[in-house]
């Protein structure tokens, strides 16, 4: 693993679900510290793409390199990459049988072999960062959706990853809770974290993204800086999509 190369380099990536061709030759390079927003209609393959990066989905052809490490059959490379790549899910996926603090310390103590005391200190630091240190000893089921998603972000941060993947982090939330999660994501972005976000929050994309990637039917259709993408989309499909999402 070499932190001086590109964070993620994907070339000619293919993924099939049975006979359905979900990813049809994706080429994508993400530099270290870059913030990329992936958008597109549902079923366009955007979730599949980021789930291939930490191998929650196995790809069928093509290369994925994370900080230079090639993802292949080698179990070791998958473990290595998962340690360095954090992920935040649409449905939070917190462990309901553990307290917030235990959720945050589980992986650091088991995977990074950090002592519990140390891990708890780190966890509290990140819980403060997402502004819920007072909920540390509660269970996920006792928190609101927005709070749960912030815990999920803190849990991912506790592994001190170099890349964070967001898979529609706000789409399962009630409108009034979306802002609190986006605030946390914005502050992360300003601190230089490499972020890949699948989201429909166009305001967020405009504010923090270095690049917007528009996907449809398993392909990258358009790739542009946000100002350009929002003001002058080139492709017909992205125009249609923007019209639907932005409501004009």
């Amino acid at each position: 693993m070499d932190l001086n190369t590109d964070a993620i380099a994907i070339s000619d990536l293919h993924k099939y679900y049975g006979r359905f061709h979900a990813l049809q030759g994706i080429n994508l390079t993400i530099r270290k510290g870059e913030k990329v927003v992936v958008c597109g209609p549902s079923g366009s393959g955007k979730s599949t793409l980021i789930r291939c990066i930490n191998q929650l989905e196995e790809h069928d052809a093509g290369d994925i390199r994370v900080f230079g490490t090639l993802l292949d059959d080698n179990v070791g490379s998958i473990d290595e990459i998962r340690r360095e790549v954090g992920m935040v899910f649409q449905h939070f996926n917190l462990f309901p049988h553990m307290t917030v603090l235990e959720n945050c310390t589980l992986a650091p103590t088991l995977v990074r072999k950090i002592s519990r005391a140390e891990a708890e200190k780190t966890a509290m630091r990140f819980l403060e960062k997402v502004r819920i240190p007072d909920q540390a000893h509660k269970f996920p089921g006792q928190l609101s959706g927005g709070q749960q998603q912030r815990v999920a972000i803190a849990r991912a941060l506790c592994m001190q990853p170099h890349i964070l993947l967001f898979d529609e982090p706000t789409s399962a939330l009630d409108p009034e809770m979306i802002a609190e999660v986006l605030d946390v994501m914005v502050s992360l972005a300003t601190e230089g974290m490499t972020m890949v976000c699948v989201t429909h929050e166009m305001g967020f994309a405009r504010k923090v993204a270095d690049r917007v990637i528009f996907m449809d039917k398993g392909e990258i259709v358009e790739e542009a800086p946000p100002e350009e993408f929002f003001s002058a989309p080139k492709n017909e499909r992205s125009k249609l999509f923007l019209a639907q999402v932005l409501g004009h």
Partner: protein
Amino acid sequence: MDRASFWRSKTIRDGVLQAAFLAALIGLVLTAVLTARANLAAQGLTSGFDFLWKSTGWEMNFTLLHSERDDPYWYFLLLGLMNTLFMGTIGLAGASVIGLVVGLMRSGRNPAARLLGTLYIELFRNLPLIVQLFFWYALANALPNPRQAIEFAGAIISSRGIYVPGLTVTSGAVALAVAALLIGAALAIWIATARRFRRMERQRQRGAALMAFGLAALVAVIALVTGHDSTQPWTTFPAVDGLRVSGGFRIQPEFYCLAIAIMTYGGAYIGEIVRGGFKAVGRGQMEASRALGLSNWQVFTQVQMPLAFRAMLPILINQYVWLIKATTLGIAVGFSDFFMVIASSINHSGQTIEFISILVGGFLFINFSLAAILNRLNRAIALKGHQTGGAA
């Protein structure tokens, strides 16, 4: 108030209905008790529980403590209750282990193992338990007689039973040692999993759990040493001695056949419960733990197993109660469990009402205490708060 409006009043109608219901029930019970008394009196017997101190005059073929022909009824009932609990513990433990293995085979991704698990479950779950028990018992009785017994790993297997090497210690000492080990194991599991110890460093937590079990093992060894008769050698090995087997420790066919039947049958049912439990674990939780870099084993022990166990426990409680009741099948092959002692006592003493009430009381006690303990455990580990986005 005229008649029509009297019957139209809801309060009065409800009261009369309930009173009639109660009266009918009480009438039924009274008839039974009075008839039974009259029948007893006709045979020159008195009702009441004085007979509990009379001697039985028959023998039990399987006891955990020493017993004789003229031990009183209460002692036999106690021994029978112990046998039921003993068989229940062994049966439940074995069934749980089999169920866990079969359930894991069925929920795994390996098609060969899945097929094997499915075959096991469909075979053992779809045949009546008593048919299986009779089959095992017929098989056990068809084993060669002691003279031609099979010797296997120091054990002698014959139609009279399986003779295994044993320690020459009193049964009380063995009971104490086993109890100590069980308590030790429970303590170790508690330390390793309870929330109270979650914040200890992992190594210290593991050390504490090991220490608890080690202490229990020490107590067990001390119990065994003090229960040993110093004039005899420590171990006893079975040996064929003419027409019979001498030495060793005899496991009766009645006992092991019932144990095997309960374990294999219960294992099939528990296997399905275990599979259901694993199916109930949300895919999201598994993905999250994998995304965090946990190894397969860590995902299994830290996330999958705890969540699956919570999902299966409520159904498991009913299954356990059912299996405990299945120990009464001992009467079909002659294992003297609580129910068989009651049945023989009724035949010998004629005290019907008394023994039936002891029977009902005994099973209410066993089942309610088992259910109470497990329900308490269930409440203690239940997931807190509202569950959202669990199964995705």
